[in-house]
């Protein structure tokens, strides 16, 4: 008995399943016809349709802006004869609602009510026309955005309904397609991890920080273990600061060269250059390269390229290894002590020095000044995230230097006591602009306001033959979550869900750019220079390396 009953249930189930399939087919069939109509009648009195309407309007308007009013005035065409499709339609139309919202969240448009257009038909008031215009602009903006992401999206298989809709719209012009894609991209993005995909206005061109190291199998044939370890350390900010990154990069590449073997019938220089490229790219994918790293890698590539083809492998490798060691020694170890002694001469007894965050060079300078007999006071201004200045204070304390620790928000209170502002640059641009860790410019501005000298320490290998005038064009995005989670306390995590909050952007930039006019003097290992001398140094020292591209 029991079994019979079960069998019947099974059968019923089967039937039910079939029924569902049938209804699905119906649905899709209806969907087609509706799509057709949807193109013609752009506005419908139903509430559920409104979002869709706006989207379609946007498409229309981008195409033929002159006709907007006309199109909108078209009265709703009679709905399909059967009563069932109405429900279906509602279901169908509800789905695209999400992507539209998502999309707007991403674009962070200022138009809060953009998608809240009411579904009224007939005569348009001025306000409505205005709104339409705004929508039009919005659509154009979206189209632009979509064009950026298009390359990725085109590879993805299009969804059935959407592709159908595309087919039906007889005049598929590029912009229209673009706006359609924008909707789709919204859908795709919502599926992915939120934090990575969110683009911040004005800074959309910067790559978001890598959450995961690029995928490569264990014992990869391309990526050297040392490079890999370094990449992960840089990604996790275990190694930070351009000097430390340069040294460790060179050391990792040295290990690569150590383990390298030239295949038979291949030139070392040619093959090694090929093998280096993916490794450098890996590092770059873990964290965007600093300017100084870029210079150091250029130097190494130049060395590799200039190895004579008939040189034996052992000798060539030796040459490269010594070149790397010499580079570190000349440009970092020796240069640092030269900079420290140059800068120490600028110090006078009882100077109060303001500096920012952790800086190995400033530490050395203070040490050298102490050795000269000039006891200086140091004020370490620090950013709350990351608080690298703590280590600075700890290190200065070991020199018996009077030290003060303040947050950067606080520096105006100490500026009248400060006599000199000394910072280390991450890079120096051709136009004399200084790229420093974010916050350096605030010190420069404070120094200018209080008429205090602003002294910048920098190794010359960090000079770069690019011009920078602002910190938006070239910069690096830090992990915004860390800013939100930074301070530990009762309200930590208050903004934990900021990604879900519309119109809220949390940005953490790594560098800022100080214009040359704010820099009093630039201390390098070669001499104490004004910023106008930067091009001279670059030409003199790096013509052979930098001239390559």
């Amino acid at each position: 008995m029991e079994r019979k009953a079960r069998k019947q249930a099974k059968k019923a189930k089967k039937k039910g399943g079939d029924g569902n399939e049938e209804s699905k087919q119906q649905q899709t069939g209806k969907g087609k016809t509706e799509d057709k109509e949807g193109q013609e009648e752009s506005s419908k009195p139903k509430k559920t349709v409104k979002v869709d309407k706006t989207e379609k309007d946007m498409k229309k308007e981008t195409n033929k802006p002159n006709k907007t009013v006309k199109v909108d005035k078209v009265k709703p065409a009679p709905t399909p004869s059967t009563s069932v499709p109405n429900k279906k339609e509602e279901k169908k139309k509800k789905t695209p609602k999400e992507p539209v919202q998502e999309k707007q969240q991403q674009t962070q448009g200022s138009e809060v009510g953009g998608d809240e257009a009411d579904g009224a038909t007939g005569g348009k008031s001025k306000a409505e026309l205005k709104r339409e215009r705004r929508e039009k602009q919005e659509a154009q903006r979206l189209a632009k955005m979509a064009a950026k992401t298009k390359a990725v999206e085109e590879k993805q298989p299009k969804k059935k309904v959407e592709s159908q809709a595309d087919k039906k719209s007889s005049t598929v012009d590029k912009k229209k397609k673009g706006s359609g894609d924008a909707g789709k991209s919204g859908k795709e993005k919502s599926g992915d991890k939120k934090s990575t995909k969110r683009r911040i206005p004005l800074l959309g061109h910067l790559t978001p920080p890598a959450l995961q190291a690029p995928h490569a199998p264990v014992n990869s044939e391309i990526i050297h273990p040392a490079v890999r370890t370094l990449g992960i350390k840089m990604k996790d900010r275990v190694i930070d600061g351009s000097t430390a990154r340069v040294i460790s990069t060179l050391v990792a590449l040295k290990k690569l060269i150590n383990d390298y073997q030239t295949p038979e019938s291949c030139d070392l220089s040619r093959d090694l250059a090929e093998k280096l490229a993916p490794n450098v790219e890996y590092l770059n994918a873990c964290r965007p390269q600093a300017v100084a790293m870029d210079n150091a890698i250029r130097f190494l590539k130049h060395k590799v390229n200039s190895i004579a083809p008939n040189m034996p492998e052992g000798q060539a490798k030796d040459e490269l290894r010594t070149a790397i060691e010499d580079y570190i020694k000349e440009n970092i170890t020796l240069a640092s002590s030269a900079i420290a002694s140059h800068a120490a001469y600028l110090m006078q007894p009882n100077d109060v020095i303001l500096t920012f965050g952790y800086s190995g060079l400033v530490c050395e300078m203070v040490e050298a000044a102490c050795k000269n007999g000039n006891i200086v006071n140091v004020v370490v201004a620090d950013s709350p995230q990351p608080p690298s200045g703590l280590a600075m204070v700890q290190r200065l304390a070991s020199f018996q230097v009077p030290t003060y620790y303040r947050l950067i928000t606080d520096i105006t209170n100490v500026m009248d006591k400060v006599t000199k502002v000394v910072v280390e640059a991450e890079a120096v641009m051709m136009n004399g602009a200084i790229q420093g860790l974010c916050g350096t410019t605030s010190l420069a501005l404070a120094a200018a306001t209080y008429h205090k000298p602003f002294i910048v320490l920098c190794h010359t290998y960090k000079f770069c033959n690019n011009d920078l005038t602002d910190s938006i064009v070239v910069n690096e995005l830090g992990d915004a979550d860390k800013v939100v989670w930074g301070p530990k306390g009762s309200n930590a995590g208050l903004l934990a869900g900021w990604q879900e909050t519309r119109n809220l952007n949390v940005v953490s930039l790594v560098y800022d750019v100080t214009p040359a006019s704010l820099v009093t003097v630039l201390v390098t290992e070669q001499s104490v220079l004004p910023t106008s001398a930067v091009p001279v140094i670059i030409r003199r020292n790096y013509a052979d390396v930098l001239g390559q591209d």
Partner: protein
Amino acid sequence: MPAQSSLSEECGGENAALLLLKFLKIRQEHKMCNCYIASVEIKMRPEVQAVVLAAGPGMRMTALTATSPKCLLPLATLPMLAFPLHLLQQAGLEEATVVVAAGEEVRVSKVVEQCGLTINVDSAPVNTSTDPGTADSLRHILHKIKRNVDDVVIVSSDLVTDVKLQDVLDFHRAHGSTLTALTAPLTPPQHQPAPGPKTKPFTSSDVMVTESESGRLVLVVAGGDYDHTLTLPSVRSSKAPLLVSTSLLDAHLYIVKRSILEQCLAKESACQDMGSFKAEILPYIVSRQFQPQNKEAGPDEDFESLVSQYNTSVVMSRHHTSASFSSITCYAYKHQGLCVRVNTIPTYWDINRRMYSLIDKVLPGLSEPRRHPSAQIHEKAQVSEDSVVGAGTLVSEKTNITSCVLASHCRVDPMARLSNSVLAHHTAITSGCVVENSLVRASLNHKCVLKNCIVTDSSRIQEGKTYMNEILEATPEFV
């Protein structure tokens, strides 16, 4: 980006052209093309070597391991060993050294092809008559560890987890760790009670002391190495808050620097008499972190001190400016997810029963179907959706199977009723049997009723009898 990609395409094209040119040239000269291709592919130095310890006798599940080695016990339809091997393969490892009990090499090496794995297995037999510990096994295969790898991954054959080895490795690399141990919160079995007579868990759990934020291992004491009380030695130089935990499972997956492993396993080292890696060598390495060390005054090849001098990082590591890290640092990677060691009957039972829902998680990419296409299920048989049916299994009509695991080549005769049970390979259930919540590893040739039983020997089953909470195994010979 487009510029880059086109560039790389160009390069690729250039390479191909170049290769072809050279290829033709060589062929003209030597008429040996294979030789050339082989010579081009000089691989990058390998970073990691994997060792799977699969010689364990399964002391805590003797009822099951009497007939087959522990590493080959089936979990659902696959042998246990397939799980760690798959874990390694997923991470991209191409070969693994598997330590097995002598005499089982052939069966073990068959596992790979059986399960559709592509990893190369180098099986190293050890003589189990002397009851070697894990450390002895490692000493035995020490010569097989390549001299140029950085790290050795040691994994036990009884690990079932959904952790990604890549993540653990990244953690290991990022921390510059000497030894990284995979840990996970201990979870009680979901399916209780396990068949057989009720037993108490017989070992106390491990004690792990970690720095709560960084996960640095400060102290490890294996369960069973302490009685009711445990005195924690004062731990120096650690300002971070410590987390003392007895609810962490040590998953027996370790990533160890080759140098330290060789040091510990060498003949003259302090641990030459240690038998167990986990209970003796691991605590030894962990404790060595805090021993004062004579700093090697050799030249700073890697410019490590220079790096830490300029490092602006706020992450505490050996590269940090004010770091006072010794050359040995041990960390625990805390995995929040599935991580089970199948080394007791309750865990074996639990994993087998859960395998239906776990199989996608723990074996991603290895599509082992829950119902093998070669299984023959009679259309009048009732097999519930959540049952696993292996290859070549025959289910006859008028049977009722709910939430069961039938391994491959089983036979269920008409009128049998199975519920919540696990059948090993090649078991036959004769008609009329009723099996509930039982582990069956031998054919039931007589009609009987089993509840909460483990069957490994069918000769003890009598016609028409009912068994409850029993282990029906072959009587030991000496009785």
